């Protein structure tokens, strides 16, 4: 009888192992090992490169969203609890800070104490409101938690004329629709946060602290238990994992993280208002998490940075152009495989452009704007303003071609469509979209999200989940 577990299959499996190779593979390996360091370096340099208050404000929003996404990742990505009330805890944190550090009640406690008290209190609230998660799963839990969010918003809006016993006249707790203005700036160890940049660095420290902590948790029995519950709750229970307790813990942990970011938000904004904490923000947080990849901490970070920063980049024509052509290049790189076919596709695009331009100039010289003399304009047809209709028709054709690229499987046909599609995209872009930045911004951002999710349905850094094999 042979030894147990030593047969030909076992002897050969090491040789069937595939490793990342080549300079690209080494770069991917290196980046995946040092992503946190890279992020910190980039984030520290960012305010000095970007200058101006506006850029730093964008950075603050991005880091706030990153904190929210990483916290939500524990609840949704690890434990699989569809929590649609998440933003309520962000609001509780913000209002908590405003209660304890503003003229609303005339209380001005030290910042560290306020943040600590608020985090603990919201963690406690999370433990209580998380109890239904013991029994409810999926959409049932989603609906219930969405209800929590609505309750929070209603309370924030209406707790401004409360009649209390033993108190004369109505009392305002939340300030109603007007919220609470004049919230104290933060002050830690005697350092008073005056500028947006101060909050930016505070948030950077918090985000890094959170990333390290959550990564540690993910490797512990708690984190592995969370993921086991998401995979198969019943099997996890049979493996000694107390699923109810761990679910509630994940829920409350997420709530506390959201609350801490809420306190910073209140201080940055110097006020809290009910409209800051609506379903719209919830969707943004989920978008960041789903885009980055549920269950991945670097994914949540990258998703949040993209969602918060890309629309800002699209505000200026130069930034929009950079993003457009960058996106086009990345799309071509991912769509054309193997990569050496690019040797045919790229000259094909250039040739198509030159051919179409000469053709159109020869046939309908009236339509072409010969004044335009940028580098791209010598390649792509620039229509005169009166030819608007042509561009609109081409726009629709472009959309059809792009959809065709996604649908077609045959390689030759796909490459041909990529050639036509890239050309048409540039044409429409240069003729129309660049002229109308407000529409372009939404359109391009939407297109970017659609393309990203089609290319990587499991998120940028997420792993594809396998349910049944």
């Amino acid at each position, binding site marked *: *009888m042979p*030894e*147990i*577990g*030593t*047969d030909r299959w*076992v002897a050969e*499996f*090491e040789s069937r*192992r595939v490793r990342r190779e080549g300079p690209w593979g080494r770069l991917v390996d290196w980046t995946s090992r040092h992503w946190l360091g890279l992020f910190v370096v980039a984030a520290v340099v960012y305010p000095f490169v970007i200058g101006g208050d506006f850029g730093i404000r964008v950075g603050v929003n991005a880091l706030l969203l990153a904190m929210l996404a990483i916290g939500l990742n524990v609840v949704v990505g690890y434990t699989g609890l569809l929590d649609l009330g998440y933003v309520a805890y962000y609001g509780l944190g913000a209002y908590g800070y405003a209660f304890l550090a503003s003229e609303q009640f005339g209380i001005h406690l030290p910042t560290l104490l306020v943040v600590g008290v608020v985090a603990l209190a919201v963690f406690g609230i999370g433990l209580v409101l998380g109890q239904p998660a013991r029994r409810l799963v999926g959409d049932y839990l989603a609906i219930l938690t969405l209800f929590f969010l609505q309750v929070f918003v209603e309370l924030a809006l209406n707790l401004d004329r409360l009649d209390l016993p033993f108190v004369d006249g109505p009392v305002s707790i939340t300030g109603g629709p007007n919220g609470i203005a004049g919230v104290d700036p933060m002050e830690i160890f005697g350092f008073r946060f005056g500028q947006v940049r101060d909050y930016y660095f505070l948030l950077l420290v918090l985000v890094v602290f959170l990333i*390290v*902590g*959550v990564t*540690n*948790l993910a*490797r*512990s*029995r*708690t*984190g*592995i*238990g969370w*993921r*086991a519950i998401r*995979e*198969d709750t*019943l*099997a*996890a*229970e*049979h*493996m*000694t*994992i*107390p*699923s*109810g307790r761990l679910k509630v*813990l994940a829920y409350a*942990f997420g709530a506390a993280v959201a609350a801490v970011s809420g306190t910073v938000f209140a201080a940055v904004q110097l006020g809290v208002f009910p409209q800051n904490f609506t379903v719209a923000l919830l969707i943004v947080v989920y978008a960041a998490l789903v885009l980055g990849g549920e269950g991945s901490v670097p994914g949540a970070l990258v998703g949040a940075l993209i969602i918060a920063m890309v629309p800002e980049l699209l505000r200026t024509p130069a930034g929009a152009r950079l993003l457009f052509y960058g996106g086009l290049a990345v799309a071509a790189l991912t769509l054309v495989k193997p990569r050496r076919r690019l040797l045919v596709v790229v000259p094909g695009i250039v040739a198509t452009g030159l051919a179409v331009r000469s053709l159109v100039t020869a046939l309908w010289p009236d339509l072409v704007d010969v004044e335009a003399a940028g580098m791209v304009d010598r390649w792509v047809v620039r229509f005169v303003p009166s030819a608007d209709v042509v561009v609109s028709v081409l726009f629709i054709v472009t959309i059809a071609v792009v959809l065709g690229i996604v649908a077609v499987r045959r390689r030759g046909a796909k490459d041909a469509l990529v050639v036509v599609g890239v050309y048409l995209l540039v044409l429409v872009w240069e003729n129309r979209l660049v002229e109308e930045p407000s529409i372009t911004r939404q359109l391009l951002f939407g297109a970017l999200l659609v393309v990203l999710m089609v290319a990587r349905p499991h998120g940028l850094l997420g*792993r594809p*989940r*396998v*349910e049944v*094999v």
Partner: protein
Amino acid sequence: MATLELSGLTKRFGGLLVVDSLDLTVAEGEIVSLIGPNGAGKTTVFNLISGVFAPDEGDILLDGSSIVGLPRHEIARRGVARTFQTLRVFLNMTVAENVIAAEYASGKVGAVRSFFGTPAARAEAARMRAVAEERLRFFGERLIGYRLDQPAYSLSYANRRRLEIARAMATGAGLLLLDEPAAGMNPAETQEITRLIGELRDDAGYTILVIEHDMHVVEGISDRVVALDHGVKIAEGSFEDVAADPAVIEAYLGTGGAATK
């Protein structure tokens, strides 16, 4: 180390009597096989013992104390571990994580210390991984080495069955409930699993209750065989006795008329 005692165990699904006042004991260090046609109630017995369902009547004693009504993770913690007929490994977790997940009860470090990555937390994580590797080593070279960090969905069917057994062992339980451990395995793998179940008892000291359809396996491992049909125990004894029992033959093959055709 564990003894199991079922007395008068009864379970109804609606009007259907699935398990009918079943008495069954498994002594410490014994391997008992549960056989019977499909629908006989074997898996339901496992589900009752491990707490998936609560019995309508009767009692389940583990080492002399009742485990009826306890939460599932508590039953597992007291020493009942199981595998599943329809495999339920954590597909999107690595092989090592699958086993570490089952070591949850052996851990003492809470979430706060884990968050801060204290030395105690790191030591515990390292210990759990070492234990996982040791459990997996039970299956030779198949599930260790770089396989430890491969996702479980990359495993073959037979390896998933092995992983489930390793996971059950990692809970620290003394009683293993194995639900068709040889299902879907080829003859060589079946032979190997037969030997392994023997070793689980002889070397590792487990008490084992096993459901199995493959009579070669049943014959190879069982100290005692219990046959169920329609939730009722129809025979009990050595493999030879049960295999020759007219009631068992009737349950599997039917009687007279239809069989002779």
